[in-house]
């Protein structure tokens, strides 16, 4: 399991290194710009601050969606075979990806926190360049972003990929699956500890079920993966 986690980290590092370097440069630029810079506000300074602000906003959005992409991206690439012939079961690989998702979540959270502080020094009473106001507890956001949403997407993708009616239209099948799950979820209004426990259990069950589907059925009808 440790080897699987190690290689997932290496893989994600190579995938995300330029994105994080880009954000590091932006944050460093903001740190080096003196607050007094804003006093000489003109179109150029406003544009630059707006650019930084929007970049951080879309970067945060992108990184919050990344864990979902991370779960299914291997299946859409030719490098799938390189991983497959190691003979590893998909189940530990998926759990390793959840650990990566956690790391990406904390990095994204660090980006949001640092970006907010950095841009705050340029804010006025009426103008805030970048703020983040969560509408639910951080623990709930973490559970959803790291485990629950990625597990639901993965399960729907794997179900669509192994279903005779959808396997040639996996994207559509996945969206339909996600829509159905969303509708079902809207009937339940859980909160507090119950929400966390149920969310955790459902996430783990979906990961294991997806892993079994991937091990036994994913390649069976795909002749060009």
């Amino acid at each position, binding site marked *: 399991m440790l*080897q699987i986690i*190690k*290689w997932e980290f*290496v*893989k994600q590092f*190579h995938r995300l290194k330029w994105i994080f370097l880009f954000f590091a440069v932006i944050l460093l630029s903001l740190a080096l710009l003196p607050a007094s810079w804003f006093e000489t506000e003109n179109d150029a300074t406003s544009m630059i601050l707006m650019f930084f602000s929007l970049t951080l906003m879309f970067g945060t959005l992108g990184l919050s969606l990344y864990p979902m992409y991370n779960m299914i991206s291997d299946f859409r690439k*030719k*490098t*799938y*075979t*390189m991983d*497959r*012939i*190691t*003979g*590893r079961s998909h189940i530990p690989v998926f759990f390793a990806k959840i650990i990566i998702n956690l790391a990406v979540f904390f990095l994204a959270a660090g980006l949001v926190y640092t970006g907010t502080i950095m841009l705050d020094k340029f804010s006025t009473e009426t103008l805030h360049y970048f703020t983040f106001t969560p509408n639910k507890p951080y623990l709930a956001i973490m559970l959803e972003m790291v485990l629950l949403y990625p597990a639901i997407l993965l399960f729907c993708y794997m179900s669509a990929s192994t279903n005779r009616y959808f396997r*040639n239209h996996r994207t559509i099948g996945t969206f339909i699956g996600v829509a159905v799950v969303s509708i079902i979820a809207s009937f339940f209004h859980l909160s507090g500890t119950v929400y966390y426990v149920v969310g955790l259990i459902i996430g783990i069950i979906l990961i294991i079920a997806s892993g079994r589907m991937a091990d036994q059925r994913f*390649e*069976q*009808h795909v*002749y060009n993966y």
Partner: protein
Amino acid sequence: MDDFIRIEGISKKYDNKYVIKDVSMSIPSGRIIGLLGDNGIGKTTLLRLLGNLQKPDEGEIRVDNTPVTQMKIKDIVYLLEPSNIYDWMKIKEAIAFYSDFQADFDKEKALRICREFGLDPNAKITRLSKGNKEKVCLMLAFSRNAKLYLMDEPMGGIDPTLKKNIKKFILENIPTDATIIMATHLLKDLEVLFDQIIIMRAGKIIYVDTDEIRETRNQSIDEYYSEVMENAADN
């Protein structure tokens, strides 16, 4: 000689269309076998079935008396295509990747083959030529000590010198009782390798000893293959 691979009535279909239908044959151990046939005839599918990457819809494949579906994928060597390797990897990272997961992967052998092929282990995959990428794939496959090697078009971009010495290279780098099944279109270059050939054509499999073709029929493998395919077209 005992049958190392026994294929019994296997069929495989995609989208209700048979790619392989009711194929049976036995293959002894310690042979190098050419798998020949037109594009799309099912060569890759047959290799994937033998490698337990896919399961037949009907029939059974046994390798060394074990149903292949009960074997571990990692016990069979399946040659990668260059596009299968992560291009951010350096050659030494690809070696480390497989030595972490495959117990029969010999790291020292991998580095020795790199030296023989003139590959720098610190070179990035993405910066290699097509031929060198194929050499990396061969290096990763032959650095293992397995009983069954499955290779799909292994030498398209390999330089002529290596092609000339390929038989010596293969025999030096696999266990003596290992079996290699190699799908290829490069018959002229590789026919010297094969102990037997399997020719796949629509609805039929021909499995023949190359000695019989060379000595009894007095033909090259390439000539024999052309004749078989022409006859198939006439019919």
